C-alpha cells in the first residue's frame, strides 16, 4: 500500500489526534494528514488537492458530517475518495443515512485502533 493522504474532519482537536494515531496504529502509512473542524472547512481543505481517505464526525457546528457528505460530490478532488464516518451518533438511521449518501464505512465512538483497521484498510487496497 502506498503512503496515504488523509483528511480528518472533527470539531474536537483531541479526537482528530486520536483518529490520526489510530490510523497509524492500523499500519497505514500516512504521507499527509489534513485537519478540519467542521464540514465547511473539510470541503475547503479539498479545494486545491485531493486525498486518499476521509474520516468524518457527524455532530459538528457550522456544517455537520451528513451535509459534508451531501456536498462532497461537488468537489472535483473528492471523487471516488472513500469516506468513513466516526461518530457518537450510532443509531441505525444515522448509519443508513450516511451510507445512502456516500459513506463507505461507519465507526462508533468509543472505538479501538482495531476497529479503525477493520473498516479502513479494505478501502485503501486499490489506492495507487
Amino acid at each position: 500500500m502506498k503512503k496515504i493522504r488523509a483528511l480528518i474532519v472533527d470539531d474536537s482537536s483531541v479526537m482528530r489526534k486520536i483518529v490520526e494515531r489510530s490510523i497509524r496504529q492500523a499500519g497505514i502509512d500516512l504521507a499527509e494528514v489534513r485537519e478540519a473542524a467542521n464540514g465547511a472547512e473539510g470541503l475547503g481543505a479539498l479545494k486545491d488537492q485531493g486525498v486518499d481517505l476521509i474520516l468524518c464526525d457527524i455532530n459538528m457546528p457550522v456544517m455537520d458530517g451528513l451535509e459534508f457528505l451531501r456536498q462532497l460530490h461537488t468537489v472535483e478532488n473528492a471523487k471516488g475518495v472513500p469516506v468513513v464516518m466516526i461518530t457518537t451518533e450510532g443509531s441505525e438511521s444515522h448509519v443508513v443515512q450516511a451510507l445512502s449518501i456516500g459513506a463507505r464505512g461507519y465507526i462508533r465512538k468509543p472505538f479501538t485502533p482495531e476497529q479503525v483497521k477493520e473498516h479502513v484498510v479494505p478501502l485503501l487496497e486499490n489506492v495507487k
Partner: protein
Amino acid sequence: MKTANEITASDKVPESWMPLLELAAREVFEIMLGCKLEVQTAAGPVPGDFTAMVGLAGQLCGLLTLRCSANSAALMASKMLGTDVKEADPQMWDAVGEIANMIAGNFKNKLTGMGDRCLLSVPTVITGSDYSFRSMADTGPLEVALVFEGAPISVAVEVHS
C-alpha cells in the same frame, strides 16, 4: 428496564438506567483512555472545576454532565493524547467535552430503542466551581460517582418527563 415511553409517566429517571450509565462511562474510559474507573465507595463531594454538558433532544430530552477536578481533566487529556500532562494542558476543555459526548452517545445507544430517537448536542464545558446551573429537566438526576486515577468524578443524567 423502563423504555423511553415509560419514563414519560414517571417523575424519576429509572434506577435501572444506573448500571447502563456506569457501563457507558467505564467503556469510554477503558477504550479511549486505557484506564479502569472504580466505584466511589465513600460518598464525598466531587470537585466541580470542570463540568462538561451534553444536551439530549428528542424522545429522551435532558442533559448529561461529567464533573471533575482540573487535575483530573488534565490527566484525561494526557491519557487521550498519549502525551505528558503539561503538554496536554491546553486540550483539557476539548478532552472533557469529548469524553462527555462519547458517554452520552454510548449511554443512549444502550437504552432500548433510543438510538434513533435521541439526538446529542455538541458539548459545552464550564470551568470554575463558583457557579450554579439549573436544568429544565423535571426528574431528579441519576448520578454515578466514580474514581478516575484516585480522584472522584461524577457522571449524571437528568431528563424531561
